C-alpha cells in the first residue's frame, strides 16, 4: 500500500512538477493551485511518513514547499527560488535543501545547492561552473531532516534565461513634419552589460514599447536585433513614454523592462508662416469688400433692376395703359389703326354715316328674323353682360330700360372687343357671326320690322368709295318718334358715359364688291333705351378716320371712354325723321349670301344724289385707311 501510495504520490508530484515547469507564470499559477490541491489530497491520503502532516484534513489548504522560479540572467549563472509553504516548521532556515542533477555525459548524481544565497531567503545560486547550457537540469526541494521531496523542477538553462533590460535608452529627434504636428524619433540603447553579445554567447532581440504618457495601452514595435530603432508618427502636443526589453533570439522569455524615457517635442511655433497668411487674408477680404461697395454704388440703378425687377403690369401689347387712362384717343387710335385691328375714328368724323347692322347668323333662338330683320340689324339696348359669345338674346326687354346696366354691360364686354384685344382671336368670328344685333331690340319694334320689307337706302358714298346706307323711309314706323326720342336720350346718356366707356363696337362694313357686309364686331354699348330695337335704329360703329360730313345730320351716339368719341352709334334712323333728308335713292336688299354680304339689287338704285352704283363702281377697297373694315381685313384680324 505504501508503494501504491508513493507511486500515486509520485504521479501527482510529477504533475505538480510539470506545472512548475510551465514556461509562463500565468499558466503556472492556475495549475499550481490545482497541483497544490492534488498534492494536499495525496498528503491527506498518505498515512505514513511525516508526522508534521496532521491526520485531520484541515479545511484550510496546505501549501507545500515548492519552487517558485528559476532564472538566468546571462546564460552563465542561474538562481532558483522556492517557497516554504504554509507548514510552519519548514519555515526555519535549513529545513529545506535543494538538490540538483545534470544530465551530462558524466552524470554525477544529485548534488546539493552549491550556494544558498545569504542575503536572499530561499534562493539557490548556481555559478558559472555549475551552469551548463544545452544540458537539462533537475532541482529538487527536499526536507533536510526527512527524506521527503516536496518539489522537483527540470529545465535547460537557455530556456530559463530572462535577459537583463537594455541600458542607455535615449532618443534623438529625426524630423518634425512640415505642419509641426508630427515628429519622428530615433531610439537608441545598449545591450545589458551582463549579456555577452560580443562573443556571441547571447544573441538578443529587443522590443520597444511606447505610449502616450499615462495612457493604458502600450504600442509595440517589431523585434530589433540592432541597437537602435525609429518611432514614427508621434504627435508634438503629447508626451510619450518609451521603454525597452529584450530576449534571447529563438527563445520566448523576455526580460524586465528598462526605465522609461520621456519624449516630448514642443510644437514648432509657426506663427512666422501664419502671420503673413493672415495678413494677406485680411487684406484680400478688405479689398473685396471695397470693390463690392464700389460696384454697388456705381451700378446702383442697374442692380436695382436686376435684383428687384419691376413687376410687369398687365397691359395690352403695343398699348400703353397710360394712354387709356389719360384718354389720348388720337394716340390710341393711331396705335390701333397701325395694327390693323381697329379703326373707328372714321366713324367719328362722319356722324352722318350710317351703317346697317346685320346679324348674319341667327344665334338667337328666339329671334327668327328674316333677312330683312337682320339687315335692319335691330339693336337693342342692354346686353347681357355675362354672355361671352355675345349671344345676347335679341328680345330682352329687361335690358331696355336699364341704361346703366347697358353701360355696365358694355364695359364688361369691353375686352371682348376683337379689334382692341388680341385675346381670343377666335371669338370675334363667332361673335361676329353670332352676335345678334346688339342693342336689345324691343320685340314689338322688331316685329314691326319683321313684317316689312326692308330696304336699305344708300344715303351717301364716302370719298373712299364706301357706301353709306340708310334704312328706307317707308319703313318708318310710328315707333320712330319714340325711337327718336330714345335716341336722343341715348345720345345724352352716351355722352354722359363717354368718360366711362370702353368701346364696344359693332361695325357695319360695306364692301362695294360684295355688297353689303357687315361685321358685328362687338356688342354695343348702348344706353338703355327700349326703342333701340326700333327698326330704324341701328347702332353703328363709326370707323375713323374719314371726316365725312353728315349730310343727314346724323349724329350718332358717341360712347367714348375718355370723352372722345370712340364709337358712334348711329341709329339708322337716328334722326330718322327729322334729320334724314329725303332719301332719294335706295337699293333693295335681295339677300344675304353666305359670305355675309348683302346682295343688292343694283337696279333699284335711283337716287342721283347718292351715286347708286357706288357699290358697283366703287373699287375694291382693300385697305383700312378708309376706315372701313372689310371682311378680308376682318379675316385677317380674326384668325
Amino acid at each position, binding site marked *: 500500500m505504501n508503494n501504491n501510495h508513493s507511486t500515486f504520490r509520485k504521479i501527482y508530484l510529477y504533475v505538480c*512538477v*510539470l*506545472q512548475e*515547469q*510551465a*514556461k509562463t507564470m500565468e499558466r503556472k499559477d492556475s495549475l499550481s493551485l490545482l497541483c497544490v490541491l492534488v498534492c494536499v489530497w495525496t498528503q491527506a491520503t498518505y498515512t505514513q511518513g511525516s508526522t508534521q502532516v496532521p491526520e485531520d484534513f484541515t479545511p484550510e489548504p496546505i501549501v507545500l514547499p515548492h519552487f517558485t522560479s528559476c532564472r538566468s540572467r546571462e*546564460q*552563465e549563472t542561474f538562481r532558483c527560488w522556492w517557497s516554504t509553504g504554509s507548514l510552519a516548521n519548514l519555515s526555519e532556515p535549513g529545513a529545506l535543501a535543494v538538490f540538483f542533477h545534470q*544530465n*551530462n*555525459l558524466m552524470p554525477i548524481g544529485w548534488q546539493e545547492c552549491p550556494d544558498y544565497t545569504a542575503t536572499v531567503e530561499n534562493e539557490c545560486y548556481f555559478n*558559472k*561552473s555549475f*551552469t*551548463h*547550457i*544545452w*544540458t*537539462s537540469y533537475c532541482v529538487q526541494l527536499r526536507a533536510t531532516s526527512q527524506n521527503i521531496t516536496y518539489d522537483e523542477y*527540470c*529545465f*535547460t538553462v*537557455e*530556456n530559463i534565461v530572462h535577459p537583463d533590460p537594455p541600458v542607455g535608452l535615449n532618443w534623438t529627434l529625426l524630423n518634425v513634419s512640415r505642419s509641426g504636428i508630427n515628429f519622428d524619433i530615433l531610439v537608441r540603447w545598449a545591450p545589458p552589460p551582463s549579456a*555577452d553579445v*560580443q*562573443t*556571441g*554567447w547571447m*544573441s538578443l532581440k529587443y522590443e520597444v514599447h511606447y505610449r502616450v504618457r499615462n495612457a493604458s495601452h502600450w504600442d509595440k514595435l517589431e523585434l530589433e536585433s540592432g541597437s537602435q530603432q525609429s518611432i514614427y508618427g508621434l504627435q508634438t502636443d503629447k508626451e510619450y513614454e518609451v521603454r525597452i526589453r529584450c530576449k534571447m*533570439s*529563438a527563445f520566448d522569455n523576455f526580460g524586465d523592462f528598462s526605465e522609461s524615457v520621456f519624449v516630448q517635442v514642443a510644437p514648432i511655433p509657426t506663427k512666422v508662416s501664419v502671420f503673413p497668411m493672415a495678413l494677406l487674408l485680411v487684406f484680400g477680404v478688405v479689398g473685396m469688400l471695397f470693390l463690392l461697395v464700389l460696384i454697388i454704388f456705381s451700378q446702383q440703378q442697374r442692380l436695382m433692376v436686376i435684383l428687384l425687377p419691376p413687376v410687369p403690369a398687365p397691359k395690352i401689347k403695343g398699348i400703353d395703359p397710360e394712354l387709356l387712362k389719360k384718354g389720348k384717343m388720337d394716340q390710341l387710335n393711331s396705335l390701333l389703326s397701325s395694327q390693323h385691328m381697329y379703326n373707328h375714328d372714321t366713324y367719328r368724323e362722319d356722324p352722318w354715316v350710317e351703317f346697317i347692322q346685320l346679324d348674319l347668323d341667327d344665334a338667337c333662338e328666339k329671334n327668327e328674323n328674316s333677312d330683312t330683320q337682320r339687315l335692319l340689324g335691330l339693336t337693342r339696348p342692354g346686353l347681357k353682360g355675362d354672355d361671352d359669345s355675345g349671344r345676347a338674346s335679341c328680345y330682352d326687354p329687361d335690358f331696355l330700360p336699364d341704361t346703366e346696366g347697358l353701360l355696365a354691360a358694355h364695359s364688361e364686354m369691353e375686352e371682348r372687343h376683337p379689334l382692341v384685344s388680341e385675346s381670343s382671336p377666335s371669338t370675334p368670328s363667332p361673335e361676329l357671326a353670332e352676335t345678334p344685333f346688339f342693342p336689345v331690340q324691343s320685340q314689338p319694334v322688331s316685329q314691326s320690322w319683321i313684317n316689312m320689307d326692308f330696304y336699305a337706302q344708300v344715303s351717301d358714298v364716302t370719298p373712299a368709295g364706301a357706301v353709306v346706307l340708310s334704312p328706307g323711309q317707308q319703313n318708318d314706323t310710328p315707333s320712330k318718334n319714340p325711337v327718336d326720342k330714345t335716341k336722343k336720350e341715348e345720345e345724352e346718356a352716351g355722352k354722359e358715359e363717354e368718360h366711362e366707356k370702353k368701346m364696344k363696337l359693332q361695325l357695319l362694313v360695306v364692301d362695294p364688291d360684295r355688297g353689303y357686309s357687315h361685321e358685328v364686331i362687338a356688342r354695343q354699348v348702348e344706353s338703355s333705351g327700349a326703342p333701340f330695337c326700333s327698326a330704324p335704329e341701328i347702332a353703328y360703329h363709326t370707323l375713323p378716320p374719314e371726316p365725312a360730313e353728315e349730310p343727314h345730320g346724323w349724329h350718332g351716339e358717341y360712347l367714348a371712354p375718355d370723352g372722345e368719341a370712340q364709337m358712334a352709334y348711329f341709329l339708322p334712323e337716328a334722326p330718322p325723321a327729322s334729320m334724314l333728308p329725303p332719301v332719294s335713292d335706295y337699293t333693295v336688299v335681295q339677300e344675304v349670301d353666305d359670305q355675309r354680304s348683302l346682295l343688292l339689287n343694283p337696279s333699284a338704285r335711283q337716287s342721283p344724289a347718292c351715286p347708286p352704283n357706288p357699290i358697283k363702281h366703287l373699287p375694291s377697297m382693300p385697305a383700312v385707311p378708309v376706315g372701313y373694315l372689310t371682311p378680308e381685313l376682318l379675316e385677317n384680324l380674326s384668325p
Partner: protein
Amino acid sequence: MKNTKVLQGCLGLLFCSIHGLLGSALDCPDRDAGGTRCSISVEKLLDRAIQHAELIYRVSEEARTLFEQMFIPFSFHAQQSHGGHLCTSNIFPIPTSKSEVQQISDKWLLHSVLILIQFWIDPLVELQASLDRYDNAPSDLLNKTKWMSTKLMNLEQGVLVLIRKMLEEGSLELHNNESVTPYLLPTDMVEHVLRDYAMLSCFKKDAHKMETFLKFLKCRQTNRPSCSIL
C-alpha cells in the same frame, strides 16, 4: 519532382556560392601571396558560415514552433522541458558553458561544429521523409525542413573549407558511423509525432551550438583577449 529540382537548383546555387567562397577566377577580392589562386579571407568565410548557422538556427526554431503548434498537445509541451531527455547526451563531449568554450581551442571548436553538422545531415533527411507522410503537415514546415537540410550541407562544405584554411588540415571524417537515431531518442518514444518533435527540438539545440561555436571562433579571430580568456 519539382521540389527536387528546386533543391537541386538551390544546391547548385549554393555550391556555386561556396565555390566562390573557396575561390573563383571570376570574382577575387583577395589574392594570396602566391597569386595562383584567388582566395577569400578567413574572416569572410567565417562570416558566411556564421550567417548560415544563424539562419539555420532561426529556421529550426520556427519549424519546431510550427510543429509544436500543429501536432503537440499542450500537456506534452510542458513535459518536453522535463528532459532534455528528448535529446540524449552528445556523442562527444561538447563545451556546455561559456567558460568551457573559452577554454577550448579553435580546432576543437571547428571540429565540434563539423561533427555536429555531419551528425545531422542524415537525420534531417529522415525527418523530411517522415514529415512528408503526414496528412496535414503545413507546407511551410516542409519547406523549412528541406531548406534546413540543404543549408546544412552547404554549411558542412564551408566548415570543411574553414578547417582547411584555419587549421590547415585535411578533411575530417566522422568517426562514429553508427546510426544516431536510436541514440538520439529514448526508446520508448515510438510514436512518430513525438519522435519528429524530439528531432526538431534537438536539431534546434545543436544548431544553437553550431552558431555559438562559430561566433566564438569569429570573436577569437577579431579580438582574441576577450573571447578566449574569461
